[in-house]
């Protein structure tokens, strides 16, 4: 694989986790992302995708195995730094945007990290600029369209200058135009991206590499186009392409 010499943004090794009710969600996950890589995390419902994501910034933990973000292990001692390095964009922007105005929401993360005054303003402006939402800084989030809210949600984590951006179903509920706008934004960023999605064409469009998480383990790890073309593999993990979509025909 290329980029072996580059520092790893994310290194998950032998990660296993069972919920307190006894349900085991992860059975030894190994995953490594090089800096600047964009990787799609695919898998059927209930495969443990959300559980894995919540391990990346230490919200869940205490199971077996380790997670490292840019070399720093995820543990209690360095949680503040880990949460700064791992930016999670949740599926419902209404869960993510909880402050009265867009500006305050984008400022929330960096302010928790201790930034104040002009430095904070500058960070907010820069993050909003990167998602093209500068004009909406003083609006309350609930008066924005869904696509705009998703973009602001991305800005809220970009403002923390994360090492890795983790997106949970970034294309869900977006109309085609907002979907394309978000794709343009994600492509323009120079951060490592892990994208959890059911939207296979979107994964193909944005991520050169894809992994399949199935029944708590990584079942496949390959270039996205190759993976989507493997019908047998896809079918065995309940992954289906939209009607009429041929991954071979859109190869660039």
């Amino acid at each position: 694989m290329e980029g072996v010499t580059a520092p790893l943004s994310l290194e998950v090794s032998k990660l296993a986790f069972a919920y307190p009710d006894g349900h085991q969600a992860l059975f030894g996950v190994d995953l490594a992302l090089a800096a600047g890589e964009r990787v799609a995390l695919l898998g059927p419902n209930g495969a443990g995708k959300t559980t894995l994501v919540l391990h990346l910034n230490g919200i869940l933990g205490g199971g077996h195995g380790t997670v490292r973000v840019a070399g720093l292990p995820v543990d209690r001692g360095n949680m503040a730094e880990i949460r700064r390095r791992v930016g999670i964009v949740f599926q419902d922007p209404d869960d993510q945007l909880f402050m009265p105005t867009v500006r305050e929401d984008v400022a929330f993360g960096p302010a928790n990290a201790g930034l104040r005054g002009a430095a904070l303003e500058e960070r907010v402006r820069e993050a909003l600029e990167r998602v093209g939402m500068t004009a909406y800084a003083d609006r309350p989030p609930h008066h924005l369209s869904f696509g705009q809210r998703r973009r602001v949600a991305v800005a809220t984590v970009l403002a923390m200058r994360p090492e890795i951006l983790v997106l949970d179903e970034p294309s869900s509920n977006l109309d085609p135009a907002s979907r394309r706008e978000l794709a343009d934004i994600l492509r323009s960023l120079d951060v490592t991206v892990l994208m959890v999605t059911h939207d296979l064409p979107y994964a193909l469009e944005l991520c050169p590499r894809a992994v399949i998480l199935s029944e708590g383990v990584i079942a496949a790890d390959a270039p996205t186009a190759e993976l989507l073309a493997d019908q047998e593999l896809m079918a065995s993990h309940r992954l289906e392409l939209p009607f009429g979509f041929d991954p071979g025909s859109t190869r660039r």
Partner: protein
Amino acid sequence: MGAGHSHKLYRHGHSVVHRLPAHCKLAAVFCFVLVVVSTPRTAMWAFALYAALLGAVAAAARVPAGFLAKRLLIEVPFVAFAVLLPFVAEGERVDVLGLSLSVNGLWGAWNVLAKGTLGVAASVLLAATTELREVLLGLQRLGLPSLLVQIAAFMLRYGEVITDEMRRMRLARLSRGFEARGVRHWGVLAKSAGALFIRSYERGERVHLAMLSRGYTGAMPVIDRITASRAQWSYALALPALALVVCVLGWTL
């Protein structure tokens, strides 16, 4: 500020009153109400002066009388019982238009009505010239416990989200032919309320996760620190100060 901020009570403007820092206005209104309620009810002229003071504030804020009057209607259900007082109160009675009314009750009704109306009018003026978000910042600045401010801020943020969810649930019920017509249907409404509660509770958990993910440790960072100059304080406190003079005169004259 964006037009999106506005709530129904707020009236967008750039008057002196609009520009005063929220915590000055909050303090002024609070003190004004305290002074008004401690005025003897027999000093009727004092209440007229209070009303004139509020009228001056409204003029300075360029809030039209009609706007103010319409929003004053909110007090109607609260003062309704004041109307009953003259009929039910004990003591000496007088005849007005053939009705036997209690003198004590009349004074009581006047007391509730006058003080209530002045208090509501002051609050309406505050709400008309201050955005809700600024009210919260002002309360925070005045030292209200940050937990209470956070709760209020979340109510402000998620009120509409939850109302929207409620509206969708109502539409879903209607679409399947349900209409609440009587007691027999209360069960369904109760279940909807329960479902809404659980959904909101789960959303609360998700919001908390999102907050933790961005480094929340229990305290909201203070991003906007509002400050007031001496001039702004003295301008805002002119209202309760003048009212206090009237009140003192009311007791001594």
